[in-house]
């Protein structure tokens, strides 16, 4: 049977490695991975796309799915954690020591995921608002369509700093360096759940269980994700 998993774009590399492992254990199941921004994935499911498992990058999106009755709420769980970091180009001169430093004129441009639609932007905005810096930083903001675009901007030296997940920063250690971790109010936890209308409910549940196994967690850790 086929099992369709819709996963947030930031899970791309890790889930591509997970799928064969799961298939090895369940030879009669073929995993089909579908990656996009969490928001787009939610809309697809809401409009009736044949999805069995939904893994989102943030709680807000999963909450919306739950409110609309799209997922099996009783089988929802958080399976990895991530952290928000500030990165700067590797060749750049110095790095900010704290979030306050970003307000200094030396940092002309800061790449941030678009707060309205990108989860990482949402986290960033709340961190900056809590620090009372949003008004100062917003004019410097270069909006990114997703987290990887922000990463690209920093890697190419087009901006002076950027907010990304630790997992993204880990992809390009030769181009960016992590200045510091920005503490978020709530921990960044990735939720996963079987879709309510899943054609393959048994397999969906078994996949959700699978991502919690040590074997799967080891793979996730390789890509920089933490335990929930």
């Amino acid at each position, binding site marked *: 049977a086929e099992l369709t998993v819709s996963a947030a774009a930031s899970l791309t590399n890790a889930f591509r490695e997970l799928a064969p492992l799961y298939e090895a254990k369940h030879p009669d199941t073929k995993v089909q991975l579908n990656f996009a921004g969490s928001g*787009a994935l939610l809309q697809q499911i809401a*409009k*009736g796309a044949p999805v069995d498992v939904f893994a989102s990058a943030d709680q807000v999106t999963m909450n919306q799915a739950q409110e609309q009755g799209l997922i099996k709420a009783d089988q929802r769980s958080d399976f990895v954690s991530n952290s928000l970091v500030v990165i700067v180009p590797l060749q750049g001169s110095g790095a900010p020591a704290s979030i306050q430093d970003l307000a200094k004129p030396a940092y002309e441009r800061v790449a941030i995921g678009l707060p309205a639609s990108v989860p990482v932007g949402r986290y960033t905005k709340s961190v900056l608002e809590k620090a009372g810096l949003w008004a100062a930083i917003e004019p410097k903001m270069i909006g990114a369509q997703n987290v990887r675009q922000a990463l690209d901007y920093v890697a190419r030296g087009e901006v002076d700093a950027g907010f990304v997940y630790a997992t993204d920063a880990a992809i390009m250690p030769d181009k960016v360096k992590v200045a510091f971790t920005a503490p978020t109010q709530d921990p960044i936890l990735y939720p996963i759940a079987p879709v309510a209308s899943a054609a393959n409910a048994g397999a969906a549940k078994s996949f959700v269980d699978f991502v919690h196994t040590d074997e799967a967690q080891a793979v996730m850790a390789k890509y920089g994700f933490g335990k929930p």
Partner: protein
Amino acid sequence: MADAWIPLALTLKVAGWATLLNLIFGVALGYLLARTRFPGRDLLDAILTLPMVMPPTVLGYYLLVLLGRNGAFGAWLQSTFGINLIFTWQGAVLAAAIVAFPLTFKSARAAFEVVEPQYEQAARVLRIGEMAIFFRVTLPLAWRGILAGLLLAFARAAGEFGATLMVAGSIPGKTQTLSIAVYEAVQAGQDDLANFLVLVTSLTCIVVLLVAGRLVPGRVPGQS
């Protein structure tokens, strides 16, 4: 990197079908608007151009609303024919065809408009029916302009990913076209893979465009 083959085949299939749909509907509507006058003709023309103006993702969203199991048209398709277009390559065809539609339509209309009506009249007095006149006189004389539009439509359909991603998803081997694969490679920071896939895309399209350009005779032999 041999993986490029499957998305490539899928891309050609999706773009090919989308171009075919464009050929039929774009030419028909282009002809209609070139040759008939009715109130609201210009407005209809502008509306038919709108898919070009919408960001593809947004278009994809509206398609999703329309075609989804819970959408007006999707529900009807499902209950009547048992067809579901979401997350299928046929859905990708539809999305790509709609995004590319204005290209064929506009080119076809412009091409039909410069065909001298006198040639059609000459065919009429030779007792050739209107349908045959269209296929034997009007269409061949407008063909160059239409072809230019079709090639653009093919290219656009092959490169489309915003609307396609929304409607068909990005399922490797099933709905993941080359351009979605490129997009994901760029997103994943796999620059080498991205460059390779871009090369494959470019070469394929160059070959298709070159071959298609060859298939069509010049306006008249002996002309440059």
